């Protein structure tokens, strides 16, 4: 199996999406904006959802 197709790599895909949520929060924090906490929450948890989706795509592919 190609190393990139390991199911654990799905976590990395999810973390990339959650990272966008962290950046979204950090920009608001640094600019002294009122924090859009709902948006940050949704982006962070989107990372979890995308991680599961990536796992489905990676683990669901046959080896041959």
């Amino acid at each position, binding site marked *: *199996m190609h190393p990139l197709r390991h*199911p654990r790599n799905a976590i990395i895909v999810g973390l990339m999406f959650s990272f966008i949520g962290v950046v979204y929060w950090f920009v608001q924090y640094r600019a002294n904006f009122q*924090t859009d*906490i*709902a*948006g940050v*929450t*949704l982006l962070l*948890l*989107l990372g*979890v*959802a995308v991680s*599961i*989706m990536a*796992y*489905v795509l990676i*683990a*669901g*592919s*046959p*080896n*041959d």
Partner: protein
Amino acid sequence: MASDSRAMTPQDHSPVAGLAHDERGGISNVVLGMLLFITSEVMFFAGLFAAYFNVRANAPQWPPINAETGEAFHLEILPLVGPATVLLILSSFTCQFAVWAIRRGDRTAFLRNIGVTFAIGVTFLIMQGIDYTLLYSEGITLSSGTFGTTYFTLTGFHGAHVFGGAIMLGVVLYRGLAGQFSSRHHDAVEAVSLYWHFVDVVWILLFSLLYLLPGKSPAGV
């Protein structure tokens, strides 16, 4: 009627990702469907959590003042939340023990563990019902402002998911007693265990938010 040359044999069993016999790779339809369902459920609860955080951030103090009593809402009156949390976490372990047992073909251990998991799930629901009764007796209802609405919406939807999980566990237990699962044929057990772990993780998050996260005092106090 011509015989089907492509009839399923035990070796053709659809694979469950991560199992030793899944040399062809891939994932079974049952587990695939459950994973996609859990993905949508993650975003469902994400919406509820986002609403809770938004309401909490915009409130001058949290928990807010109860208009009827003039005091801030408090949840210390709930004696069963801690034991219910411990039980639900324990049930994730027993559920996983059941999965491991059926993977190695130990049907006795599988039935024992899935039975315990089912019983704990029902116990959790009873405990939550008792907690709700206590809250209602204290005047905290679904219509008690933003606090009551968010609290009962979050815990109520989670309770509904536990109820659904308990039904699934009941079906798995019934099918297990009927001898329908083996070390090669147990996709439903794997799928239900994934769902049960998800429900458990959501409760840990909910418990941390509702009972452990410190409150917010009004500005200048």
